C-alpha cells in the first residue's frame, strides 16, 4: 500500500521559502503537537496502569523526573518501551515504531513537570526510618538486611502515593522477586523465606536471617507460595499521620547515587 500523497523535501522547502516562520513553523508545531497528543493518549492507555496516568509512578517507576535511571538516553528509552526490562514487571510492547516514538516523546516531557508537593519533612523522616528498624530487612547505603528491596533509589522508582499505600498495606504490593514461601520438609522441619529461584524439580529460598536453603521438591511435604503475604507489617496504626508524611518524604528523597 502506498501513501496517498508524498511531499518531496525540495518542493516542501520551496513552499516554505516565502515565509518560513508564518507558514511552516505552525505546520511543524502542529505535527509535534499531534505526536505529543498521540503519545499522551497511548501513554495513558498502555502505560498508565503501572506508571500512573500522570507518569508520576505507582507500581511502576516514577517517570516524572529530569533523569530516568534506566532510560539514560533516547535510544535506551525507545528500547525499553519496545522490549521491556528483563527480570522486571516492565513488559515489551507490540506497538508500531511511530507509536513507540510518540510515547517516548511524551515521556520526555514528564521530566519537565513540576515535582509533586509532598507534605512532611525528610530529615525527620530519616529518624522515623531508623526508629522503625526498617534496616533489619531493607538495605540503604550498603547497610541493612536483605529480605526486602534495596531502598537507595526508591524515590526514583516509586511515587509518594505508592509508598504511602505500601506502608499502610504492604501486602497489596509485593515487590517483584520477593515471593514469600512456607515449606515443610518430609522430616517435619517448617521454614519460611523469600524465593530465590525455582524450577520444576527444586526450589531455593533465603530464610528470615539470610541463610540460603535448597531442596528437591520431592524432599518437601509442603511448598506454599504466599502471594499476598509480606514479612513487612502495616504501619497504619504504628505511625501518626505526621510521622507517615515525614517517612514518605524521606523515602521520596532517596534518588540513588548518580
Amino acid at each position, binding site marked *: *500500500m502506498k501513501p496517498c500523497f508524498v511531499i518531496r523535501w525540495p518542493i516542501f522547502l520551496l513552499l516554505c521559502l516565502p515565509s518560513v516562520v508564518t507558514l511552516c513553523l505552525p505546520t511543524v508545531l502542529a505535527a509535534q503537537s499531534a505526536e505529543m497528543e498521540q503519545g499522551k493518549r*497511548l501513554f495513558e*492507555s*498502555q502505560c498508565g*496502569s*503501572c506508571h500512573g496516568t500522570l507518569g508520576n509512578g505507582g507500581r511502576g517507576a516514577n517517570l516524572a523526573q529530569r533523569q530516568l535511571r534506566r532510560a539514560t538516553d533516547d535510544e535506551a528509552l525507545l528500547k525499553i518501551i519496545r522490549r521491556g526490562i528483563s527480570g522486571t*514487571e516492565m*513488559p515489551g*510492547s*507490540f*506497538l*508500531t*515504531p*511511530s*507509536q513507540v516514538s510518540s510515547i517516548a516523546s511524551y515521556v520526555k516531557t514528564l521530566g519537565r513537570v513540576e515535582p509533586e508537593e509532598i507534605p512532611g519533612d525528610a530529615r525527620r523522616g530519616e529518624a522515623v526510618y531508623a526508629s522503625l528498624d526498617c534496616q533489619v530487612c531493607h538495605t540503604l547505603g550498603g547497610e541493612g538486611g536483605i529480605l526486602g528491596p534495596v531502598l537507595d533509589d526508591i524515590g526514583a522508582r516509586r511515587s509518594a502515593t505508592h509508598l504511602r499505600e505500601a506502608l499502610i498495606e504492604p501486602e497489596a504490593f*509485593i515487590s517483584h522477586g520477593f515471593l514469600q514461601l512456607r515449606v515443610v520438609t518430609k522430616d517435619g522441619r517448617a521454614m519460611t523465606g523469600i524465593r530465590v529461584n*525455582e*524450577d*520444576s*524439580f527444586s526450589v531455593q529460598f533465603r530464610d528470615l536471617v539470610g541463610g540460603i536453603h535448597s531442596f528437591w521438591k520431592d524432599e518437601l511435604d509442603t511448598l506454599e*507460595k504466599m*502471594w*499476598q503475604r509480606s514479612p513487612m507489617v502495616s504501619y497504619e496504626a504504628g505511625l501518626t499521620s505526621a510521622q507517615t508524611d515525614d517517612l514518605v518524604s524521606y523515602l521520596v528523597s532517596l534518588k540513588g547515587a548518580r
Partner: protein
Amino acid sequence: MKTLLFVVATAAPILLSTAVPGVAQVSYERILAAAFEPGNWLTYSGSYGAQRYSTLDQIDRDNVDRLQPAWVYQARSTQKFEVSPLVVDGVMYITEAPSDATALDLRTGRPLWSYRRSIPQGIVTCCGQVNRGVALLDDQVFLGTVDAHLVALDARTGRVRWDVEVAEHTEGYAITVAPLALKDKIIVGIAGGEYGIRGFLDAYDPRTGERLWRFWTVPGPGEPGHDTWSGDSWERGGAPTWVTGAYDPELNLLYWGTGNPGPDFIGEVREGDNLYSESLIALDPDTGELKWYFQFLPHDVHDYDSTQIPVLLDAEFGGEPRKLLLFPNRNGFYYVLDRVTGEFLVGKQFARQTWALGLDENGRPIENPESIPSREGALVYPDDDGAANWYSPTYSPQTNLIYQNVREKGATYYLADATYEPGKIYMGASRRTVTGEDPKGFLRALNPLTGDLVWEIEVHSPPWAGLMSTAGGLVFSGTMEGDFFAADAQTGDVLWRFQTGGPIYANPISYLSEGRQFITIAAGSALFNFALPE
C-alpha cells in the same frame, strides 16, 4: 576429460545405491518408509504422519535413570536454539540462528561443514531470528532463511546449489520453519503475521529452485473466501504458515496450519471470518489446490495462530475405521478432524481458556465478548503465546495417548491503533501479564479420540519444549529452567532428569549411532546428545 566424466556418470548410480557414510542420499521412498529405519530421523516430525514417535527401545523405563550426556555441540549464536535436527547415515544436520546450517559427525560430535549466511541489516521477526531445522531430499539440504530465501545446499559440503527469494523480507516476510520434502517438491511456509504480510504456502522444484505453485492463505479478488475480508484488509491479512505440516501419501494430501489474521488484535478493520487464517488447510501437493479447510477460529483477535503440528492417526472412531487428524490448538481446544473430508469430530478444552464460552456442534467457537482487547484492557487466558505453540506434540501407538506441553498464562490486552507501514509491526495492542501468580505449565497426556486428560505433570513455567515418545515407554520433555526429563508414558512418573543450564525451546529426537540409541535436545545455546553408558 570426456572419459573421466563418463566414468563418474556411470559410477554414480552405484555409489549412490549404497549408504556411504557422510553422504546423504535421502530418497522420497526412504522418508515414506521412515518408520522402518528408526536409527535415522529423516524429516522434521520423524515421519510424514508427524507423530514424533521413535520405535527405538534400547533406552527404556528400567534403564533411563542411567542416561547421561555423550557429547555436546555449542552453537555460535545466543539466540533461541529451536532446532529439530535431522539424522541420516552417520551425520546430523542442524540449523543455528539466524539462518545457518551445520553438519555434525555422529561419532564424535565434530562439525563436518557449516553454511554461514550473511543476513541483511534490519530483518524483522516477531519472536527472535530463529530457525527450526532443515529438510533433506536426495543429496541436498534445504534451509529457509530469515531474509525469506530458500536455499539448497550440497549435503556433502554445505555448498550452495541454489538460493531463491521466496518473498521480500523488507515487507516483513521471514522464514523460520523447517521445509518439508515431498516426492518432487520442497514445501516451505512463511512467517510475518505481526507485520501485515499476506500469507502463503509454496512448493519448489528441489533440483532448480523454481517455484511450482503458491497457495495464498488469504484469497485474492475473485477467489473463494475473498469476501470474508472487509475492504482491502486482505492485502495485509496475515495467515502465515510458519510451522511444518504433515502429509498423507495415500490420500496425497498435504496438511498445514495457518496463523493469525492481521492486525493481530484489531478486528474492526477486517470484518468477516478472515479465511484462511486460523485454519487447517488440506492441499493437493501436486497442484497446490485446496481440497478442504477447517477454520478453528474465525475472525481471531487474540493472536492464537493455528500453526501447530497436525498429527495423523488411523483409528476406530464412532465404530468405524477413520483417518483422523489430531490438533491440540494454541487456543486451548483439542480438535479431532476427519482428514479425508475435514469434518469436525471433536473439540475439547485441554487448557485454561477464557476467550470462548464453548464450541458449537460444527466446532465454531462461541466467543466471550469480555475477552476482546479493549482500550480499558481485557483479561484473557491463554495470552497470545497460547496454550500450545509451534513446539511439537507426540502420539505414542504403544500407549495410545497424545502428549502436549501446555501453557496456562493470562494477560490483559490494551487496544492501540495500528497503521500499516511495510515491514513494521502491525498488531494493535499492548500486553500486561497477570501478576500475583506464577503462570502454570504442564505436560498433559490426552485420550487422542476425546481429548480427555489421562495424566499430567506440572512444570514450573509454561514450557516451550516439544515432546517425543519412544517404544521404550518414555516421553521426553524440557522446561524453561533447563530441565530435560523423561517420564513414564503410561503413568507420567518422572524417571530421569538432567539440568542443562539453559531454557529449552526445541523438540527432542532419537537416533542410533553405531548401534547405540541417542536422545538429542537443544537447550540454551547447546545441543545435548544423551546415551546410556557404554
